[in-house]
């Protein structure tokens, strides 16, 4: 497909988008066409992304930022251009984008750096990040383990206290609790932009406003928002943000930490090694300027180049159009599920402020058994707690099944899914309708 710059692609154009993703042509179980509804776990890759990574190895592979030879120049240029593409997608400056292995790695870089500042590393400038007993870190009850456990552990190491903002029965973070939970003691407020379970999109403004009032740093988990919504980090006003390449149509093995320039300049490194230092003696080392300060060792160059290609691909589609397309999918998913007996959605039941990430339980059938039957119909969904056990516990369940969409998902995918889902209770003999033959 030749992509054209457009504000909004219609159903027809999105049908063409699908052809860009070679894996979607696969057949699974007994030759059934694949229906991939597990994009919130990891997205499939368009040809341009696969080609970008491959082209790097075939033509330009070299160590970046150090070589004096032509390949090294080319590799460096591609690597830094990719940083520009990713920055442009999320409304950041290239110097504010740090490459990491994934979003989890990005949060850990930040938590390690804060931990190091708390132990006195990084000089006077870093002291603004230091945590001590009496300080608080606040998260929400909707977080992915990756935006929870690093903070739990940072608190355990520094003596700070972890608090969290609870979630409503509909799966919305209770922003009306911000005022009483985020107090002057709060130093870091880390929250998800969109839940990978409920699909609920968080209104960022009140979080940023409250953090500003109390002088806390904001950390946005943008893993699910960046692939599916227009995201402008400068406009949102958060201090830090993280996201993964593999969820935004990019390669595995690459992600990003965004930090406001001024903050990255004051933050001590998290990982140490080659390429993040300037003058090194056996006794000590001086650190490079960001973003290099946070990029120790030989980087995931081919993957960064692939993530840059994914960012360009999404920019060409237009994130408004992507969001609009996925809103249509969300509506169809929610509408279809509402018509099935004994299937209950965990999360908002309307498409408003919500992603096409729909988790549900089937009465009397365990999520894994639901997933197995769907898999047998060629439909790939995720089952389990989706790395959000506390959120599941909040709803009194151990596991859900989750259907999630991306730019390439179409209505036929949804329909095949709904059809198979409608057969689940019958197969397991728990239908409360009149005998559904097995």
């Amino acid at each position, binding site marked *: 497909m030749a992509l054209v710059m457009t504000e909004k692609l219609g159903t027809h154009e999105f049908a063409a988008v699908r052809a860009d993703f070679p894996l979607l042509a696969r057949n699974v*179980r*007994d030759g059934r066409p694949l229906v991939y509804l597990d994009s919130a776990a990891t997205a499939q890759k368009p040809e341009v992304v696969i080609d970008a990574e491959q082209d790097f190895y075939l033509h330009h592979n070299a160590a970046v930022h150090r070589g004096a030879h032509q390949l090294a120049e080319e590799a460096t240029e591609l690597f830094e251009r990719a940083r520009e593409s990713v920055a442009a997608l999320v409304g950041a400056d290239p110097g504010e984008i740090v490459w990491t292995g994934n979003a989890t790695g990005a949060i850990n870089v930040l938590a390690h750096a804060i931990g190091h500042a708390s132990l006195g590393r990084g000089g006077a400038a870093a002291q603004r990040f230091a945590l001590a007993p009496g300080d608080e870190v606040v998260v929400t009850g909707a977080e992915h383990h990756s935006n929870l456990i690093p903070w739990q552990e940072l608190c355990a190491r520094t003596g700070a206290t972890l608090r969290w903002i609870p979630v409503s029965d509909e799966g919305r973070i209770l922003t009306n609790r911000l005022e009483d939970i985020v107090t002057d003691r709060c130093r870091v407020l880390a929250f998800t932009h969109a839940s990978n379970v409920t699909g609920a999109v968080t209104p960022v403004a009140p979080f940023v406003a409250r953090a500003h009032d109390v002088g806390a740093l904001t950390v946005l988990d943008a893993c699910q928002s960046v692939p599916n919504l227009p995201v402008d980090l400068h406009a949102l006003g958060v201090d830090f943000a993280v996201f993964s390449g593999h969820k935004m149509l990019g390669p595995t093995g690459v992600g990003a930490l965004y930090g406001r320039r001024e903050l990255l300049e004051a933050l001590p490194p998290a990982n140490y090694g080659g390429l993040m230092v300037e003058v090194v003696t056996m006794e000590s080392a001086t650190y490079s300027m960001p973003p290099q300060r946070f990029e120790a060792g030989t980087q995931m160059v081919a993957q960064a180049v692939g993530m840059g290609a994914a960012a360009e691909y999404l920019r060409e589609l237009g994130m408004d159009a992507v969001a609009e397309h996925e809103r249509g999918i969300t509506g169809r998913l929610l509408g279809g599920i509402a018509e099935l007996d004994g299937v209950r959605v965990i999360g908002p039941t309307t498409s408003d402020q919500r992603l096409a990430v729909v988790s549900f339980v089937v009465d009397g*059938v*365990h*999520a*894994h*058994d639901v997933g197995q039957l769907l898999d047998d119909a060629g439909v790939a969904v995720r089952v*389990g707690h989706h790395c959000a*056990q506390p959120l599941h516990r909040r709803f009194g369940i*151990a596991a859900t099944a989750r259907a999630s969409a991306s730019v390439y998902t179409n209505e036929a995918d949804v329909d095949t899914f709904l059809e198979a889902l409608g057969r689940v209770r019958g197969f397991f003999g728990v239908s409360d309708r009149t005998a559904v033959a097995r």
Partner: protein
Amino acid sequence: MTVSAMEQLYQQLILDHARAPHGHGLVPAPDGDAVGESFAVNPTCGDEVRLRVALRLDDGRPVVDSVCWEGQGCSISRASLSVLTELADGQDAATVGARIESFRTLMHLRGGGLEPELEDELGDAMAFAGVAKYPARIKCALLGWMALRDALTKVGVHPEGTE
């Protein structure tokens, strides 16, 4: 074909056991029995099981008096717990230990058959043979068996084989 693949995995015996599992609910052990308890988590799904084994001595040989458990899980794991309860109750500990190992062997067979004696030994548990084709479900079927092995270890019975 669909039905057949799913029916092969979810044998009627499995569905029946899952719906009304044996040994479900923790009950006090008979007086004088040694009691081993264990807790196991399937990290894939977060499902948990707490299992209790009661052991008595019969002619000096340890014999499983009863197995009971509670927890949540999928139909495969519940049915598997149910079947193992049946297969363990009243058997001497060595036999149970051997069955645990045989069941592990069954789960890690990918194609290829089990030796006939092992098939006999496993009895109803052979209904789980289809699980081996679905790597993500092997942990479901094994969850209870590993909990049983762990509980036995707690009362000094060490089934052979290493994890």
